[in-house]
């Protein structure tokens, strides 16, 4: 599905990627960018909610383990902010069920465990944007 044409529904959307691991961020930008997304990357947890407000993205991809503030905190604040209904895809490397439960309880739209397949990621982002 990675080579799926950018249909009208997939349209030029904007993704905000919040991820502190540089290599992972590079990979995700590459994958989503090739699928036609405008990807903005942000590395820090503390300023992440402000970044969401500034970029007004169609989808947020959010890592849990961030310097400064955890992804859970960021999610909580985003859900209270001006873009409360933005779809959020959470990524975590811890792989524990309680993290998933917590993320969903806090209002994550989807949850993925690292490592993931690029195709799944791209499809998930497209799904979220289509809602």
């Amino acid at each position, binding site marked *: 599905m*990675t080579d799926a044409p950018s249909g009208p529904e997939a349209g030029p959307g904007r993704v905000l990627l919040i991820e*502190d*691991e*540089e*290599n*992972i961020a*590079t*990979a*995700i930008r*590459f*994958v989503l960018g090739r699928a036609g997304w405008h990807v903005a990357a942000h*590395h*820090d947890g503390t300023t992440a909610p402000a970044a969401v407000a500034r970029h007004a993205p169609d989808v947020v991809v959010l890592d849990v*383990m*961030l*310097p*400064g503030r955890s992804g859970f905190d960021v999610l909580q604040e985003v859900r209270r902010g001006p873009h409360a209904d933005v779809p959020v895809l959470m990524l*975590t*490397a*811890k*792989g*524990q069920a309680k993290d998933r439960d917590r993320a969903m309880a806090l209002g994550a739209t989807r949850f993925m*465990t*690292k*490592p*993931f*397949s*690029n*195709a799944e990621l791209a499809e998930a982002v497209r799904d979220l944007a289509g809602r």
Partner: protein
Amino acid sequence: MTLTPNLLVGVCLAYVAALFAIAFYAEGRARRGRPGLRGPLIYTLSLSVYCTAWTFYGAVGYAARSGLEFMTIYLGPTLVLIGWWTLLRKLVRVGRAERVTSIADMISSRFGKSAALGVIVTLLALVGTTPYIALQLQSVTASLAVFAGPEATEARSGALWIAAGLALFTILFGTRRLDVDERHEGIVSAIAVEAVVKLVALLAVGAYVVWGLNGGARAALEAIRVSPVADWTGGPGRWAGLILVSGAAIVCLPRMFHVLVVEAPEERDLATASWAFPLYLLAMCLFVVPIAVTGLRMLPGTNPDLFVLTLPLAGEREGLAMLAFLGGFSSATSMVIVAALALATMLSNHVVMPAWFALRGAGGATISGDVRAVALTARRLAIVAVLGLAWLYYRTTGGTAALASIGLIAFVGLAQVLPALVAALTWKGATRAGAAAGILSGFAIWAWVMLVPVFAGSLVPAGLLAQGPFGVGWLRPEAMFGLAGDPLVVALMLSLGLNATLLCLVSLLTRPTPMEMLQAPRFVDLPVAAPSRDGRAVGPGAQELLVATQRILGADEAQALFAAEARSQGRPGELPATTPALLDRLERRLAGSVGAATAHAMISGLGGGQAVGVEDLIAVADETAQVLETSARLEARTEELRRTTAELREANAALTRLGRQKDAFLGQVSHELRTPMTSIRAFSEILREGGHSEADRARFAGIILDESRRLTRLLDDLLDIGVLESGQVELALEEVTLASVIDRAVTAATSQVDTRLTVTRDPAAEGVALVTDPDRLAQVFINLVANAAKYCDAPAPDLTIRTATRPDGIVVDLIDNGSGIAPADRAVIFQKFARLGDPTAAGGAGLGLAICREVMGRLGGSIDYLAGQGGAAFRLRLPHATPAATELAAE
């Protein structure tokens, strides 16, 4: 038959042995629950302890010296027994109901259980009675001396043996057990026998004198008529005074109170005694005058006190003399035994036991052990002390006026209790302070006017008495307040007058304490019918019993019990009548819950109308102590349980904490492993798809390689720390220079990474040699140098390595010139996965410093953050030689 002292002593011993046998027999009967030897006759005979050796021998001497005045000694008790019948009956009834143990107990109990009054009366009794006991010892030795002749020293030392023997007898039969009712079957029986012996002896001597020496009653009467003995001497004042004193003695002397009240078996026995005892006294004085008259005529110039003995001896009637001697002996011993017992009871109950309780109380609340045993021991010691004191008094004053005149003086002294005693039974307004003021003032006057003059010239300087203290004439004992006349009458009037006046005045001026108000009606308003448990129902009390029983057994059980009792009595729906059967069953039932003594005290107090005595309270205290001890043990166990629970909870919390730490650690490990895996997988997929530029391919492959290395390093570290923490590290020790280790480390740390870090070292200091595991030590340095290379944020990053050699080891500081580690983070840097700070610094799983700490520990050294150095700084301490045999136990 010739009477030698040895024979006399032998007869005495046989007589005493017989008394022991009688006492044993009576005790045995009583213990087996037989009706015993008690009864009106025995009771009456036991009252004869009034007739001591002073009466037996001394009445004749008194008559020989002062004529018929001796009769007052018999008239007083007779008048009290007949004329004061009502008050006497009340005294006995109250004494029995309140389970009074002595006259001191009576006074103390009536006036609000005052401990002070108990002590005062006890001391008064001791002062008044001890010389009197000494008098008995003297009479026995003096009578022995009559037989022994001139070598009287032997007889004199006999007093000690007599005192010891009497102490033994009293201890044996007086303190065998701590009776709740203080009755001593053995002693009373022996005294009754002695009463008979002395009466028979005196009557026999009298009969011999009248019919043997005078030739018939008519001749004897004629002899009396012409003799001065038959004269009425002394004024009416002296007669009245003497009758008053001896009348008071019948209730106030400790021994008389003991036989009259404490040992009283049944109240109705007093009715018999009230006519039988005066008859006994009449018989005792029947032949006093003939003996005195005959003695004066036949044995002029000899001691009239011993006519009872010397007349038969003069007539060579040695058997009769022996009987007379035994009579005197009986009089003396019965008095000594009862007096010692009564005094010992007072001393132990009012002086020794309170002191003991006070001392124990101070030592802590956990009283244990048998209080009864202590009480008995105290009483035995008191008996020995009383008799020892009397013997001492006899030794120091024997044969002097101090002893001879002490009989009447003691009577007057003890009569000081009379006002308080009468007020106790008749006047509810009498207060503790009033009683104390009365007794103390009377006691003081008596001591000064009557007791002190006895010792004039010996213990007391004669001048003091002749001129009065401080030269104040009107304070002279002989003419106190200027009152002249018969010294006895003056002393009696003064002491008893002041005593009674102060008692009334102070009582009117003071208010009774609540305890006194509680006690007063029990003594003054005694119901006419004596409380009895002989089968009659006692009306009131069932309600109180039910209330008390409920408190102990609980409402349901108590009501069920009473309902069952009422049904069995044929009165369903009502409260049962408090029959003795009910009381007994109830007492047994309650005893199971609160102990026998407490149950008995409760039931006696509520149902039977009897009071709770000292021994009851002692027994209750003993039981309470046991309960306290048990509950203390339970408390200790509860405390132990609580502690164990706390320890368990703590262990549990520690386990939970460990579990959480393990979870957190696994989460960290998972995160650290999955993060490089994510990059590797993503770029692998990207590369597989193809279509990338050469530069992109090379970049993606480089990332995959870096992340693979990171993964490998992490796995190595994880394994390493696992091994280090488990303690299964094998050290390869060898001697190396520090420089060689640091060389290796710097090369390894800086060659792999593209770094601008420079390392400043001190080659001279690093030349130090040490025994260590060089690979492990190098691992520490590699970590620290690599960290500096990775995290030092200075424009020209530099790491300075300073080495110092000290006697106790080597100190190496590694300091970079970056911005250092924030103080808050310094505490956690040595923990696993405590990766700090910079988001851009990729890799660097937080195991490095944790591993360093483990390694340094294994090498016998340490690693710490070194604050205040500007940049990040670490201090390593190393021993000169790591001990080879270090048992690498986990920390």
